[in-house]
């Protein structure tokens, strides 16, 4: 096996890494945003429930949740390793993303909400048209961090046998006995994925920056 084949075998796992990330990150964002809105604007009882959700899922290592979902909860159910893995990571990420969005919502001054309501916008409209657009901008830097974490955590689905980058590195490392090269290749691929993603988000952040005089 030449070097090209070696690398391309590991790199072909990128499909799964990206796939897992593309399921986990947006589903985590959707759930996280909804929960954050409930946390901040849903009253005390909702806040307590959301706090519990956040504490529980930030307290469980993603790998443990992965095993629970795949081997215990969906025992006998035909849930593929890919989906079990992606959803577990999505759930864990939703707890972190909830905190990110919550922080961003709280950073937008409550006065903005008041000003919006003063011109007759409903609470929901005020949140949607005034608070959220500003919160999104504040959330991008920490969200970029979370995106990097999810990309790297996607390697955990190797434990369920999803042939992503890390698992492929292990397999080809074992068969060729060139472990160092295999893991280095995996590291480079992960780095490029994370680097590319954070750069893209940095560009987005710059693009969305609200103009102001110095």
């Amino acid at each position: 096996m030449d070097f090209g084949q070696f690398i391309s075998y590991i790199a072909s796992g990128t499909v799964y890494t990206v796939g897992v990330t593309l399921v986990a990150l947006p589903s985590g964002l959707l759930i996280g945003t909804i929960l954050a809105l409930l946390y901040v604007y849903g009253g005390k009882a909702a806040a307590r429930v959301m706090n519990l959700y956040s504490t529980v899922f930030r307290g469980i290592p993603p790998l443990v949740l992965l095993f629970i979902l795949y081997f215990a909860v969906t025992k006998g159910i035909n849930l593929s390793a890919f989906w079990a893995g992606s959803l577990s990571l999505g759930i864990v990420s939703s707890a972190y993303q909830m905190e990110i969005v919550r922080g961003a919502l709280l950073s937008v001054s409550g006065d903005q909400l008041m000003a919006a309501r003063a011109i007759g916008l409903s609470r929901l409209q005020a949140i949607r048209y005034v608070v959220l657009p500003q919160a999104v901008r504040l959330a991008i830097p920490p969200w970029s961090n979370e995106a990097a974490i999810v990309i790297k955590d996607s390697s955990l689905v190797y434990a369920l046998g999803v042939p992503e980058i890390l698992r492929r590195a292990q397999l080809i490392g074992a068969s060729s006995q060139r472990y160092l090269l295999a893991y280095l290749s995996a590291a480079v691929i992960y780095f490029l994925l994370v680097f590319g993603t954070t750069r893209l988000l940095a560009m987005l952040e710059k693009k969305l920056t609200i103009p102001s005089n110095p």
Partner: protein
Amino acid sequence: MKKYFLLVVALVLVASMLVGCSSEPKSVLDKINEAKKVVVGTSADYPPYEFLDEAGNKTGFDIDLMTEIAKRMGVELEWVDMPFDSLVAAVDSGKLDMSISCFNYDEERDKTVDFSTAYYTTEDAFVVNSTFTGSVVKPEDVANYKVGVQSGTVQDSWLTDNLVTPGLLPEANLSRYERVDQAALDLANGRIEVLMADYVPVQALVAQNPDLTVVYHGELSTGPINIVLPDGDTALKTEVDRIIKELQDEGFIDQLAVKYFSE
């Protein structure tokens, strides 16, 4: 925090109980025959038992054996690659029909899954690198050095029970690795002095790394290796045991051993 933890544990228990209640006591063998397909797990990172060939296909002692077993069962064989640690849980939860991955009998594992009759018997080995100046005459001698082992393996149990617990080997001098190759890397760069692992893959390791030498081998922890089967499924176990016996009698398994272990 404790409250939350208990809540999670309770949720998981309830969930698994609900699912447990709904499944009927039906032999996996029936399922295999109905689907005309057996789903088998292996961790294809353990040459020469299971690994990938140049083309990226699974090959090895266990792979060839299982291919023959499936053929004799008259069903198609579907491989699922999974890390070793996950294979038992996958059989227990019904995600896999069985697993073959150089499994030794283990009392803990026996509580959740069954084992087929042994299809082969293996040995353990101690490996050192070229800078090693000590001596290992008998297995207990390794207690004087920094030892590495794959975590959760029978070798790990042997070291823990025979050297660490009696106080011969300080816990700090035993490094547990997720994988043998990680231990081999540390052996090469001197972080550990002796590596304990299964003799057959060790031979492959030594063949690839001229710096490494086997200083001792013998039947310590390891012994017979078996196929992992769903718990309490006698119909399936009877069928698999029958085929293994048949293959042993025909000399098929010895031929495989020559093919994979004698290089």
